């Protein structure tokens, strides 16, 4: 069991979702975050005050997968989120000890296998 945690550009989300579904990854959770990396900084001005925005809007995906799915999940995200400009994001793969599906109490692999 792994948790794939990916940070991507907001405007790549539709492609990434499509890519994941194509890779048969159907369960995922998305949150709006803001990131700092090597991106060019934005400058804003409000009345005389000039500010540098160090954080950029990003989307974070949390995807619990069983081992066989790890690689294709990472690959699907990498491809769909790619633009080539600085700021495309990062993917972290974390070990997971246990996954539970609340509705059925199924554990682990069964917990992340979609019911359709």
């Amino acid at each position, binding site marked *: 069991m792994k948790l794939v945690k990916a940070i991507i550009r907001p*405007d790549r989300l*539709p492609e990434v979702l499509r890519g994941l579904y194509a890779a048969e990854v159907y369960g995922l959770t998305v949150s709006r975050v*803001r990131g*700092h990396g090597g991106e*060019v*900084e*934005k*400058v*804003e*001005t*409000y009345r005389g*005050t*000039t*500010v*540098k*925005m*160090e*954080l950029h809007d990003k989307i974070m995906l949390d995807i619990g997968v069983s081992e066989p799915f790890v690689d294709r999940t990472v690959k699907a995200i990498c491809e769909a989120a790619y633009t080539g400009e600085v700021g495309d994001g990062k993917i972290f793969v974390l070990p997971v000890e246990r996954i539970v599906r609340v509705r059925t109490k199924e554990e682990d692999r069964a917990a992340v296998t979609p019911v359709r």
Partner: protein
Amino acid sequence: MFRRTVCFMAVLMVFVPAAFAQEADAISGADTAWLLVSTALVLLMTPALAFFYGGLVRSKNALNTMMMSFVALGVSGALWALLGYSLAFGEGSAWIGDFSMAALKGVGLEPNGTIPSLLFMAFQGTFAIITAALISGAVVERMRFPSYMAFIALWGLLVYAPVCHWVWGGGWIGEMGALDFAGGAVVHVNAGVAAMVAALVLGARKDYGREALLPHNVPFVLLGAGILWFGWFGFNGGSALAADGIAALALVNTMLAPAACLVAWVFLDYFVTKRITAVGVATAIVVGLVAITPAAGFVSPTGAIALGLISAFPSYLLIRWRTRTKLDDSLDVFAAHGVGGISGALLTGVFASVAFGGAEGMIDGNAAQVGIQAVSILAVAGYSGIVTFLLLKFIGLFAPLRADAQSEGLGMDISAHGEEAYATGEGAVLLNDEEAPEHVNGLISVT
């Protein structure tokens, strides 16, 4: 001098007490009071439009969209006083006014009809402002702001002023007997066609048809629609240029037509999508208001209800169809204002009634009026479309019309205005003066 004024004068005689009517060319306190209010009401419509439009775009473009309306308050307002008014209402020819009143020369407190000339100028100015701002709905989320400002500045002089002259300033359309109480052709057909042309020239947003581009704040859309309705009472009611029965008729019709259009839209929405949408209701209000605009002081209240009901259909269907095409008239300015204006102008020819201050319409037996209305629509649409096209191409020679793809992706608020509509301040670092300029000029390209 002004056909419009004189024509209402005649009507006025019928209903006002003798004490007023005796001195037709003196200022009437009551009429002035109502026109003062009407001018304020119409001016308020432009901020209202900013919210109507601003709520419909994505939050990263909210300020840019609102600014397109707000900047018209400055640019179009000032130019109207300096030049536009004279071009529209100067004696001139059947085609355009002249420069005799440029910079408001000779426009003072003397009566024009029963109100001070200056007030008439200002009232008309508020129309010029909102007509320009209406166009912006077709080019939101992608047009460069400086090019937009140049466009509306020139459009007000080269398109709005002549068309206004044709219809209200003593020009040929007015002479021909076309009925346009408060701007079905002058304002709405004019802006609607210009919007469609601008959408074509600019091209679609890069995400159009590929991603769902959803309204970021529907309450703002409703707020805009509510305040627009309020302001429209000045738009139509004030176009009587007097606080008389015709003003009352225009105001009542401006209340009933959108009500009827709303009801029709709700049923359409329900039968087509099984949902009654808030964006739909806001749109219906605007379409009903647009449609009654040319007719407000010419038709009976029951005529207004019928007109409002009928006008829901073409606009509703066009909006549904348009979203399936490649034409990114982003906020459906053509479907709402262009088509709403056309429906309204034609139906004015149908429902106009002598008993209610209008000329004879089709129902009164004068089918020819519909033809006259059609000619006026075609003339305005043709002129507006062609000159808008040329104007945009001309401006495009000097500066790009569209923001680059990166700016569009980032959102026009940050790229063109250096602001966020809803900033949290997280990760914002104050810059002192030495740091600021290089960033401003260097790292981020200015749209």
